[in-house]
């Protein structure tokens, strides 16, 4: 704590958010308390212990106030227009699509940012995101400006049931339903709309949204098309998940298999993928003999683009922010510190959206990195690994310790949320992670080479097929080992 004040302040800030989620505190008394804490912090500027104490109190109150502000919806928020009673009059809402629509065979869904709503024959200003379901396959994309006509609900049981099953939530019964509603709330979604079939969508324009996100999603679509054209559906599904974070094409049994062996993290875009992208970008720029500082300047926007293309989920955002902080440390010739970069990433995410603290992805992402940073050096010293003479054994054991540290850190969270305990995880990660690295590299190479030469791309496609097949074989073998995975009581 002495060496990492930012880590301490981030912890205090998170604690403030956590406490505020349990206690319904009024805003203004807390706010005046925070002002008093700010004044006392300024007054104790020269007295370190008092300054630290008042600063900690202030940061704690800031965390609590941030959550209260986040949970306070403006008077014109879309959720405030939802009737509690059933109404036959459909809602008419104008706004734009705020994510990449998910097109299924029977229905499409997307997040819609509301701007105007027709209520009681009057057009009123609106704000907030809502989840929209439309029957059939729709040709929609991010930033499409639409007028939607349909029924508006708060997330409730029937929807929660179908959606939680679709999302593959493992906890059973009401818990899964409640957790899906909480998941939506944590994402800032307080309303769900079912669009009227037939003529419930009126297209107004196409030029809304964030230009960089539009570019990123356009690139993502192109890469997806290349992948699905070059390799089999199964392999393309895995590559799509590993490269671009689109998990919907991965068959459920493969997902289950990887969950059992504790390697499901490679099927979502995480810090691991961001690291590989950063490595590829740096390598290409190094080959092109671009100077070191210029490499950092070029790589940061590319990482941001990748973050946006993959949906800016918590693990990717965490990894991108950490990469940015570490790169800037190199740029300004400062000593890079993992704790500080991790703390800055957490502070940025929680300041923008404090409800992310309760997101499983956020918790697992930060806990796994924190346990690697904290536990790995300690276990390494304890096992006296550096004393080992044979280099390749040392390397293997080193990787084992990294996996072990991450496993130990996330053990409790995985047991609590997924009701599963996988002793095979450390061994599985030792084998799967290098393979996943190769698959990811192969996938990116395939996407890039396809633009230049189709015949050459076939070699990468064949290699990707082989590696994905190997991934399944190893996973199947590991999952069948005795005591590979133990299901805990209370699992649905």
């Amino acid at each position, binding site marked *: 704590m002495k060496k990492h004040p930012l880590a301490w302040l981030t912890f205090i800030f998170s604690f403030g958010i956590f406490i505020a989620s349990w206690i319904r505190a009024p805003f203004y008394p807390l706010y005046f308390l925070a002002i008093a804490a700010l004044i006392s912090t300024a007054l104790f500027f020269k007295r370190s212990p008092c300054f630290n104490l008042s600063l900690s109190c202030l940061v704690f109150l800031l965390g609590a106030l941030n959550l209260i502000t986040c949970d306070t919806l403006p008077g*014109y928020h879309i959720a405030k227009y939802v009737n509690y009673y059933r109404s036959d009059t459909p809602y008419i809402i104008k706004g734009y699509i705020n994510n990449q629509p998910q097109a299924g065979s029977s229905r499409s869904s997307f997040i819609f940012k509301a701007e105007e709503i027709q209520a009681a024959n009057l057009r009123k200003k609106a704000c907030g995101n809502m989840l929209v379901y439309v029957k059939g396959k729709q040709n929609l994309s991010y930033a499409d400006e639409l007028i939607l006509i349909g029924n508006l609900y708060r997330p409730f049981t029937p929807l929660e049931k179908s959606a939680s099953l679709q999302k593959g939530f493992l906890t059973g019964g009401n818990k899964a339903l409640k957790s899906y509603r909480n998941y939506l709330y944590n994402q800032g979604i307080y309303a769900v709309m079912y669009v009227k079939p037939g003529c419930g969508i009126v297209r107004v324009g196409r030029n809304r949204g964030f230009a960089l996100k539009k570019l990123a999603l356009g690139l993502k679509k192109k890469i997806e098309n290349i992948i699905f054209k070059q390799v089999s559906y199964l392999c393309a599904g895995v590559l799509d998940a590993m490269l671009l974070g689109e998990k919907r094409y991965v068959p459920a049994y493969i997902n289950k298999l990887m969950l059992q062996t504790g390697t499901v993290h490679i099927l979502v875009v995480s810090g691991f993928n961001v690291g590989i992208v950063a490595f590829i970008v740096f390598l290409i720029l190094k080959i092109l003999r671009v100077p070191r500082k210029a490499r950092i300047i070029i790589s940061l926007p590319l990482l941001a683009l990748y973050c946006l293309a993959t949906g800016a989920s918590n693990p990717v955002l965490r990894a991108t922010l950490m990469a940015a902080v570490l790169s800037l440390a190199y740029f300004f010739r400062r000593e890079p510190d993992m704790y500080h970069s991790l703390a800055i990433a957490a502070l940025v995410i929680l300041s923008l959206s404090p409800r992310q603290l309760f997101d499983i992805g956020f918790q697992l992402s930060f806990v796994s990195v924190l346990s690697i940073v904290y536990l790995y050096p300690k276990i390494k010293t304890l096992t006296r690994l550096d004393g080992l003479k044979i280099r390749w054994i040392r390397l293997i054991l080193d990787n084992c310790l990294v996996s072990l540290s991450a496993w130990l850190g996330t053990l409790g969270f995985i047991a609590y949320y997924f009701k599963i305990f996988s002793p095979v995880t450390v061994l599985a990660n030792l084998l799967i992670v290098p393979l996943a690295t190769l698959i990811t590299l192969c996938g990116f190479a395939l996407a890039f080479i396809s633009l230049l030469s189709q015949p050459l791309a076939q070699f990468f496609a064949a290699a990707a097929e082989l590696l994905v097949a190997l991934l399944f074989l190893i996973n199947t073998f590991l999952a069948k080992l005795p005591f590979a995975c133990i299901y805990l009581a209370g699992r649905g």
Partner: protein
Amino acid sequence: MFELTRQEKQVILFLVATALAGIGIDFSVKRFSTAQSMAAFNENLGKIDLNSADKDLLLSVSGIGEKLCQRIISYRQEKGRFLEQAELKNIKGITASKYEKIKGSFIVR
């Protein structure tokens, strides 16, 4: 606890004070905001034009089945076009109560 340099303290104080001010403004704006009325949307928005709607579009209206849909299309072909919505009542199967139920979904252009 932790040790901070004078410069670090200044930066942290500045950031924390800015964040506090920002949170206060954000909360107040949210707390005291009300819905503002604007002009109404086009009242015909989302209604189906009886003269151009195809089979699928007609079927999407609740209360219109396969048979009724076919009768509406046949009527339109026979008469050339609908001149007013009330002509729906001339179609076999559309009673006065049914007409009241479905008329809100249609428009004649």
